[in-house]
């Protein structure tokens, strides 16, 4: 697609292809144009100039505008938009009935089973919890048999526990139902848990695209994520387990080992670890007598001081992966850090992504 949309004081200019498989995160801070872009793809915003093409079909172009109901684009809204005058079953049937002619290999019961909706069918949307409403909304969108599923911050209104319940369902969608997903969010955890690729937006423009780990590791995204949450995703595989001390060793891709609180997965399973930049400290040599056990040999790639604060962001090379550290500018001066210098990265805390199952295998 190649699109320009102007509002008073805001312009969105995007020329971007989206892959036809997997889950692509449309990622960026509030107000960067993510949701507007999604509405343009869906055909809900007629004010944009430019072209939107899906496969061989022009959805929008000079003299062409395919209305939203003929695009076959599923849309899961943040506020679910379940029909209040229908039951859960009525909402699902509404979509199902209108997709009769679409040749897709799954039926009503498949969707109900996959999202565990059977106990909810007789209820009205007003009698559902936030998480249940969102599961129904996802099921309803699937039953319209879309070619493409758009999800607009579907978990933004939910608490952490409910998010944890729904994320695995979302991660399975592309494989279980054979459709590509564009997933709008500003939450890094959601990206690392379910998405395959990132298209990062800022102020109406694409600022980065690529695999999740690569894009998140890039330092210039620190602003977008916010200093506090900025971090890196490390890919690895489960190694040895220490049941007595409740620890699991994770062998990182490209070398290095991190010990984390026990993970109940079999050895060899792929996992992703999210390390926040503020949880990484630096030393010139392996220190002794320290409670921090995770020490990774690294080489300084780049140092970005933030003149507006006491801190600097240091990008580290671990061999095959990158890691970011947030240290004080004073420490950078004291340690005389320069690019190319070998250091030891000390990792305090690691958040572990439970849903990061082997890529490509069914959930």
């Amino acid at each position, binding site marked *: 697609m190649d699109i320009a949309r102007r509002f008073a004081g805001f312009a969105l200019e995007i020329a971007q292809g989206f892959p036809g498989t997997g889950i692509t995160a449309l990622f960026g801070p509030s107000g960067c144009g993510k949701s507007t872009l999604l509405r343009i793809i869906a*055909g809900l915003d007629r004010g944009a100039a430019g072209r939107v093409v899906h496969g061989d079909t022009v959805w929008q172009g000079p003299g062409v505008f395919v209305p939203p*109901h003929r695009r076959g684009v599923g849309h899961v809204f943040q506020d679910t938009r379940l029909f209040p005058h229908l039951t859960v079953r009525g909402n699902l049937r*509404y*979509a199902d009935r*209108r997709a009769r002619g679409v040749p897709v290999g799954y039926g009503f019961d498949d969707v109900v089973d996959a999202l565990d909706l059977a106990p909810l069918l007789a209820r009205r949307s007003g009698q559902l919890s936030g998480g249940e409403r969102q599961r129904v909304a996802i099921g309803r969108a699937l039953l*319209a048999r879309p070619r493409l599923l758009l999800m607009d911050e579907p978990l933004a209104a939910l608490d952490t526990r409910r998010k944890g319940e729904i994320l695995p369902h979302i991660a399975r969608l592309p494989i279980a139902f054979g459709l590509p997903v564009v997933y709008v969010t500003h939450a890094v955890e959601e990206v690392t848990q379910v998405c395959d690729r990132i298209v990062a937006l800022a102020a109406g423009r694409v600022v980065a695209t690529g695999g999740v780990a690569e894009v998140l590791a890039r330092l210039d995204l620190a602003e977008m994520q916010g200093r506090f949450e900025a971090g890196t995703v490390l890919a690895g595989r489960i190694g040895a387990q220490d049941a007595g001390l409740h620890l699991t060793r994770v062998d990182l891709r490209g070398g290095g080992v991190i010990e984390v609180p026990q993970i109940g997965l079999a050895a060899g399973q792929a996992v992703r670890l999210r390390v926040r930049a503020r949880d990484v400290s630096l030393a010139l040599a392996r220190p002794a007598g320290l409670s921090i056990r995770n020490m990774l040999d690294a080489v300084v790639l780049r140092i970005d001081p933030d003149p507006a604060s006491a801190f600097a962001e240091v990008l580290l090379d671990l061999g095959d992966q990158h890691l970011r550290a947030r240290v004080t500018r004073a420490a950078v001066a004291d340690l005389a850090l320069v690019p190319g210098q070998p250091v030891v990265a000390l990792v305090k805390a690691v958040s572990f992504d439970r849903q990061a199952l082997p890529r490509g295998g069914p959930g």
Partner: protein
Amino acid sequence: MTALPDLGPLWLTAQLAAVTTLVLLVLGTPIAWWLARTGARLKPAVEAVTALPLVLPPTVLGFYLLVFLNPTAPLGGWWLAGTGSTLTFSFTGLVVASAVYSLPFMVQPLQAAFEAVGRAPLEAAASLRAGPWDAFCTVATPMALRGYLTAVVLTFAHTVGEFGVVLMVGGNIPGRTKVVSIQIYEAVETIDYATAHALALILLVFSFVVLLGVYTVNRRFPVHVG
């Protein structure tokens, strides 16, 4: 006490109100839908026009209707040529006049109901492959059902209660244009207070019951179908 008053005008009133309500359902729905969704500059003007019957004296409305509906005016003449009957002093003319007079009672509740539905559910319907007409029938209308109930009841009741416009456009022809409000007026004029009492009480009770019903239903029942 005299004998029971002639109930013909009461029946004619009910017919007039029912037909007027049906006509306004068909005409008022698209107007209300457009008003609820448009951002056009014309919107305030259209809103003002539809609200005019609320504030104009019935004599003003009745006068203009006479001017437009009489057989020498283009509209009245065209109707006479087409149907062989006049619009003035006829039941059809009364329906036209009542529809104009009661328009705001249909449009305003519907507009409020459509505005309350908003765009969001219709966008959701479009994402589920429902075309605009489909979405209107299966999402907007059921969600606006309480607005429809209010609009229908108020339009019917208001038409039953009209007097001035009917008198000017319809006159007082038994069986054709003599509605109950005119019958009461006539009874008072001829000092037949018993008839006036009986008919006035019927209208009073009817109006109260209708309004009580609307307010009760609106408060107690969120309308659900399907």
